[in-house]
C-alpha cells in the first residue's frame, strides 16, 4: 500500500511485522494524547494576550502572505507544562510542538484559513530519542516517546484539490510534503482531527500525498 501512484485506503502497511507491531504499540500509547489547547483566564489578561497574537498573525500575513513562520523567531522549542494560558504563553521563551501547533492553528483562524490539528508519530534514531527524554526528564519524561518513535503535533492546511491537505510542521517550519516515509526523521503514522477544525465543514476523508486519511483515526503511512 505504499504505492503512491493513486489514492489508496488506509489503514494499510507493507512493512515488516516487527515494525508494524512497534507502530501499533506506539499508537496505543499515544492515542489518548489530545492536541494542545491554550486556555483563557477569566480576567482580561488572556484576552489582551490573545488579541495581541491575533493582530500580529494578521500583520505577518499581510506582509509575507504567511501568518505563522514568525513563531519560531519568537519562541524556542523546549518543554512546556500544562495547562497553559494565553497570558503565560506570550511571556515564555520556550514552548513545545503542541503549543507551536496551537499557536499556528490560531494564526490560521485569525486570517480566515481552514486548519486542522494533526498528530504524527515519527521515527528517529533511538540515540536522539534518548537525548530528548533526558531533556524532558523534569517535564514528564518520556510520555511522548516509544523506542525510536515519538509523538509530534503539526497542523494541516487546505491544498488545491477538494479534500487535499498539506501538513505544516511549525516546529521545523517546513511542509511535510517531502518528508520521508521511511528511515530517520520519517513519518510513520498520522491522525488528522476534524473536531477541532476551526469551524470548517467536516470532511469524510483527507487526501495527503496519495493517502486517503479518515478523520480522527490513526493511519499508518510508513513505507
Amino acid at each position, binding site marked *: 500500500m505504499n504505492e503512491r501512484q493513486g489514492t489508496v485506503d488506509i489503514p494499510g502497511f507493507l512493512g515488516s511485522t516487527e515494525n508494524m507491531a512497534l507502530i501499533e504499540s506506539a499508537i496505543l500509547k499515544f492515542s489518548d494524547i489530545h492536541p494542545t489547547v491554550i486556555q483563557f483566564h477569566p480576567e482580561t489578561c488572556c484576552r*489582551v494576550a490573545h*488579541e*495581541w497574537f491575533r*493582530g500580529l498573525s494578521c*500583520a505577518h500575513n*499581510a*506582509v509575507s502572505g504567511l501568518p505563522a513562520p514568525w513563531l519560531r523567531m519568537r519562541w524556542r522549542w523546549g518543554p512546556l507544562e500544562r495547562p497553559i494560558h494565553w497570558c503565560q504563553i506570550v511571556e515564555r521563551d520556550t514552548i513545545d510542538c503542541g503549543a507551536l501547533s496551537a499557536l499556528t492553528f490560531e494564526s490560521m483562524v485569525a486570517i480566515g484559513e481552514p486548519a486542522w490539528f494533526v498528530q504524527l508519530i515519527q521515527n528517529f534514531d533511538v540515540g536522539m530519542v534518548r537525548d530528548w527524554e533526558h531533556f524532558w526528564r523534569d517535564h514528564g519524561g518520556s510520555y511522548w516517546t516509544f523506542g525510536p518513535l515519538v509523538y509530534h503535533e503539526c497542523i494541516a492546511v487546505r491544498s488545491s484539490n477538494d479534500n487535499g491537505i498539506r501538513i505544516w510542521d511549525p516546529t521545523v517550519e517546513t511542509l511535510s510534503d517531502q518528508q520521508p516515509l521511511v528511515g530517520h526523521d520519517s513519518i510513520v503514522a498520522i491522525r488528522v482531527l476534524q473536531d477541532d477544525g476551526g469551524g470548517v465543514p467536516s470532511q469524510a476523508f483527507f487526501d495527503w500525498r496519495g493517502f486517503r486519511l479518515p478523520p480522527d483515526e490513526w493511519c499508518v503511512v510508513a513505507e
Partner: protein
Amino acid sequence: MSSGLHSEFFDDVWITRPWGELDLSLHFEQIQQRLDEMGGYYLPGSDLEARWLAKRSAFRILVPPLEAFEHTSKPFEMAEKILPVRVPEFIALDAGPRETYNFAVDHGWKVWVKGPVMDAQRVHNWQHLQFAWGELAAVWGEQRFFLQRDVPGMDVTVAFAAHDGRLLGTAFMEKRQLTGDGKCWAGEVTTCSPDLVTAIASLTEHLKWTGGGELEFIREESGQLWLIDLNYRFPAWIHGATLAGINLPASLIEAVSGVTPLPARCESRQFTRLVMEIPVLNDLQFPSPPKEKKTKTGSIASKLAVTSPGGLPQLMQRLFTSENASPSAQPDLIRPKPPLIDPNFEAAIRKSVVPSLESPARILLADIAKVRFDLMRDVASVAYPIRLSPAYSIKTNPDRRLMEMARRAGFRAEAISIKEALWAREAGFRFEDIIYNGPVPLEPTPLEGHVLHAVFADSLESFCRLCDLRPYVARTIGLRLSPFGSESRFGVRLEHPDRFRAVSDAIIKSFPTDVGFGVHHHLQSSVMGPQAWLNHTRAIVEQAKSLENITGRKIQIFDIGGGWTSESFVPFIADHLHPLLDHIHNRLPNVEEVIIEPGKAICEQSQVLVSRVLETRGTDCKWEIVVDTCLAEIPLAVYFPRDVYHLTGTGKLTKLTSGVGRILGRVCMEHDILASGITIPPETRVGDFMIFSHAGGYESSMSYRFGVGGFHE
C-alpha cells in the same frame, strides 16, 4: 580551490597555463591532437570555454553551435517563447538612470545586476547598484548589463544532453542543501514532467544543440518556473544524476560514438557532496602561499573575479574584446531608446532657463508642479465611503509658492515642528487644517489656544502627555505606529506583548472621550517598493484593528505616507489607492478620514537645478565635466539618480544617455560627484547649462551653504 587533479580516479592529468596566458590556437590544436590520439570526446567545463570551442566547431568536441549562444543570450526571452517558463522582468542598465532606478523601486529593490553571459549580484540600493555595475564593468568592459527582479522560490534545475538537436535525456534536480554561496550541496534527482521534456526537446531541436546543458529555474509555490540561467555544458552535479540512474554523459557519448554504455542504476534519488582530504601527487606539489594574504576587495563572489586562478576573466576578455565579438545578440527590447524629452518639460525649461540666468539656480517649474496638485485634488474629490485628504509635507519643500499651490488644491499641511506649523499658518493654512507629527513632542504654547486637525505622538510618553493636555491641542489625537517588522526609530512598536498591553492600558485609562482617535503610519515606498509598502500598510491596519478590539476606542483617522517617487505615485493612485481605502473601510469601519501624504511624489519634479559647465576634461578614457553646483545644492545626489539635460548656447536641449562619463561638483570633496554612468555630449562647451531634474523635494529643503565664502554676523 577544490582540485580534483590529485585524485586517483583520473588516468592522466593535463595541466595548462591560465586562460590569459594560453595561445588559444595552439591550445585548440593540442586538444584535437589528444582527442585524436585517445579517440575520446571533449566536454567543456565552463560556459566561456564552451563558447570558445563553439567558435572552432570540430568533431569530438561536444558543444552547442555558436548560433545557440547567440540565440539564447541573457535574459533568455527566446527560451521563454519555447519553454513553459517565464523570465523575470528586467531592464537594461543603459536604459537611463531614472528608468533603472524606478525599475528597482517598483520591485522593492529585490533585484540583481547581471552580466551579459554570467555573473550576478544582488543589490539593495542605488549606491550598491552603481558599485556592482562598476565591478562587473571592470571585468566585462563596456558590455550590456541588465537589472532583473529577484524571484522568491525554490532552486530547481534541469540537466540535459542533446546531439544534433535531438534531446537524449533530462534530469530534474531539486536542491536540498545549499552552500553559503547558494551552490548545490545536496539534491534530489527525478525525471522531468512530460511537458517540460517536450519543450526542452523543441529548444534543443531549434538550436541544433549538441552537448550537455543546464536550465536553472526558480520554482514558485504555485509551481511556476522562472528561468534564471542557461548553461552550455553539463552542470557540476551531473554525477548526482548518474547516481539516480540518469547517466546523461553516457547517453551523449553513446549518441556520438555508437558505443553502448553500461545500464544506469539508481543507487539513490538523492545525492550529497563530501569534502575529503586526499594525498597530493608527488609531481604536482603545491607552491608556498603568498607571503601576504590576499583578500578580496570587491563584493562580487564571481567566477570572473580577477583572483580566479584559471584566468576566466582573461578568456572572457579575449573572447569578447580582443576578438571584437559581441557577447550576445542583444534583443531590441533592452537596447536604450533614444531619450525623449517631455514637451511640457522642455517648454518649462525654455521659458525659465534664459542665457542671462545666474547659476547655480533652483528653478520652479510651476506648470509641472500644478499637474501633481491638480491630480490629488481630483482624486480627493471622488466620493468614497471614507474622506480622502491629501496633506502637503512642509519639510519636503517649504517653498511658499508650492505651499500656496497645495492649499489652493485643497491639501492639508503636515508639520513636524511647531515652527513648520506656524509657517503653514503664514502660508495661508488654517490651524484646523494642520496635522502635526513627531518625533518632537508638540509644545502647544505658540498655538495660543488654537486647535490643530490632528496630532500624532511618536511615543507612548508623548501620547499620554497629549491625552492629559487641556484644552485639547487637536480634534484628533493619535499614535504613530512603528513600521511592522522593522528597526525604525519612529513610532510605537506593538510587536511585544508587554508593549501592546501598555499601549492598550494607556488608551483605556487616559484617552479622552470627546477627542477623535487616529493612527499614523509612514514608510518610504521608494526604499521598500510600492507592493511592500502596501503590505506593511495592511499590517498596520491589522495592528490598529487589534488596538480597537481591545480598547473599544474606534479609529477615526488613518494617516498614511509616503516617500513615493514621483514616477511610482501615479500608478499607485490609479491601481492601489481605491483597494487600499476599501480595505481600511472593511477592517476599520469607523475611520472617517484617510490622510495621505505624498511627500516628494508631489514636488520632486517641481524644480530643477540649473548649473553651468566650468570645465571639460578627458581622464582615463572618460569624459568628465565640472559644473558650478555641488552636493550642497543636490545633497542626495549619491542616494538616487536624476535626469540630466544639456542646454547649449545655441539652444539645443538634449537628455544625457548612459555611458562612462561623470559630472563633478565644484567643491573639494571626493564624493562631490553629481552624476556618473552618463555620456557627456562631445559638443559640450564651457558655459553650457547642465540641468538636473528632481531637485524640488528634499534636494531643496536639505540644501546648505558650502564653498561660497563667509557671512556677516
